[in-house]
């Protein structure tokens, strides 16, 4: 929930260990005892499954009999002979491309508006956080299906203006848009991270800028944005990873339809694994996703050097 980009942390953590000689060996054991819950969980539920899924992606496996080694045939099938894969990847890319920037933009805007000491702030905060509170529940799905249906609320509002609305969810051209809208509406967690970041910016920076005669806009551009850039980066990375995994809304509201217009990647993977019991194929799909997300994250980390500003780094500048 905190805006330090993992990059600096990792670098720092590594530096710390190389720099500091551990003083007392007594804390070695204690340290490992304290982190053991995570370490055991990591080995059992992350490391071993990753290795397992890598192996399974080269097999055919239906849970019922032993996995059969099939070499790279899953991967070949995915890339050469699977129209659904191409479609679901395209749908997911569009989803990520629109929902990530929209969410970042809105949550930053609202966080700036909420970062003030005015009365009744708690009420505003609750109201604005409320949509995120109800999360990816069936409740939201019911709401959305109803609001965007042919005779749903959205169309009633449009009717006042004499516009004849369509069934937004049942129309393949607009169905994905409704899911992007839903995702954007629930920007609460992203906003809270921004809010936390804004509270960290030293007030004296603004004060000295005022002395220099900087206006609101210039303060925002020259102080708020650079100081928030690590938080922005953190939100961007988590946002991309989260959006690539979007599942619940498509699963409940549209079931991937109409004509696969909302058939997101996670839904595709889920059905391959738990509807058709093609565990090997699903594992290969997961690895393809991992590579895509990994490459995008790496690109982002590389690009971050040019726009993320860290106070702690001596050579840090605002970049370009």
């Amino acid at each position, binding site marked *: 929930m905190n805006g330090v980009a993992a990059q600096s942390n990792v670098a720092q953590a590594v530096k710390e260990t190389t720099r500091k000689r551990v003083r007392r060996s007594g804390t070695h054991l204690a340290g490992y005892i304290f982190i053991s819950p995570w370490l055991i969980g990591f080995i059992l539920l992350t490391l071993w499954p990753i290795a397992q899924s890598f192996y399974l992606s080269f097999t055919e496996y239906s849970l019922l009999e032993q996995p059969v080694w099939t070499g790279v045939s899953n991967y070949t099938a995915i890339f050469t002979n699977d129209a659904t894969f191409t479609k679901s990847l395209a749908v997911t890319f569009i989803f990520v491309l629109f929902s990530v920037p929209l969410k970042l933009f809105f949550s930053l805007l609202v966080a700036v508006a909420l970062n003030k000491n005015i009365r009744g702030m708690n009420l505003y905060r609750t109201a604005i956080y409320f949509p995120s509170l109800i999360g990816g529940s069936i409740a939201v799905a019911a709401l959305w299906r109803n609001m965007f249906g042919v005779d749903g609320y959205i169309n009633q509002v449009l009717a006042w203006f004499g516009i004849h609305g369509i069934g937004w969810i049942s129309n393949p051209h607009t169905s994905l848009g409704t899911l992007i809208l839903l995702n954007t509406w629930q920007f609460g967690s992203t906003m809270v991270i921004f809010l936390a970041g804004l509270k960290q910016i030293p007030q004296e920076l603004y004060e000295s800028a005022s002395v220099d005669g900087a206006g609101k806009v210039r303060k925002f551009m020259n102080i708020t944005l650079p100081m928030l850039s690590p938080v922005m980066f953190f939100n961007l990375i988590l946002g991309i990873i989260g959006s690539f995994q979007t599942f*619940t809304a498509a699963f409940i509201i549209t079931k991937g339809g109409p004509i696969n217009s909302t058939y997101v990647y996670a839904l595709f993977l889920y059905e391959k694994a738990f509807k058709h019991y093609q565990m090997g194929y699903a594992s290969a799909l997961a690895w393809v996703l991992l590579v895509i997300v990994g490459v995008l994250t790496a690109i982002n980390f590389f690009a971050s050097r040019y726009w993320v500003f860290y106070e702690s780094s001596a050579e840090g500048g605002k970049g370009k």
Partner: protein
Amino acid sequence: MTTWRSKLSDHVLLTLFSLLMLYPVIWWVGASLKKTEELSLPSLWPKTPMWENYSSGWHFSSEYTFAHFFGNTLLMELWNVVGSVLTAALVAYGFGRLNFKFRGFWFSILMLTMMLPGQVTIVPQYILFNKLGFVDSYIPLILPHFFGGGAFFIFLLVQFIRGIPRDLDEAAKIDGASVYGIFVRIVFPLIKPALVTVAIFTFIWSWDDFFAQVLYISSVDKFTVGLALRMFIDQFDIQWGQLLAMSLLSVVPSVIIFLFAQKHFVEGIATTGLKG
């Protein structure tokens, strides 16, 4: 003069925006009291509120009332919250305060796991839980919370612990406290605000964690509220009024918790400091 003006414009802007965010929810309350035919009418409030939507929705399943599903979900949540809060605090203390070999390496790994798409591990995890005979029980849903509650919470608490002055540890050490004593007597009590944040997030997120629930729970008597609601959706003739009524009830616990603890919620995050 100008400050008064800008204050007023802030309020107007925020009020409008809050309404925009809440409008679907306001509509929702009214719609949950409507007959199905009435749903397509533009009024926010029905002519005659159908309170029976709530009672018939509550008794919708022939075998169980919604009380049963709420009971299931709350029991699971209790375990989740306890698991997350306890183990995240332990692990964060280890990373934030103790020196041990390869600490930096493990911390980097922890940060990397935050970036791992869940789909990569979901199939083998399912296979593992299946082999252990845990499928169709709450164990696959609860157990992960006892392994540190997730990288996100551990990271949050590590940041928080780093903000606690080390003089306190030193003083306790002089009094003869061990690293365990320092954790119990100094660190754990001091990170309570952040632990509240962890508890709230755990509650809200696992309440909504539909994917895992669909995956692991199959028998109706173990259904969570979310799964019970899906039974409405899967009907041929959807009883919208009942569905919306029960959906509304299903978000009440999260809303109560948020209202009750929202001060901690925002401050708890904000005070953790953004310096790595």
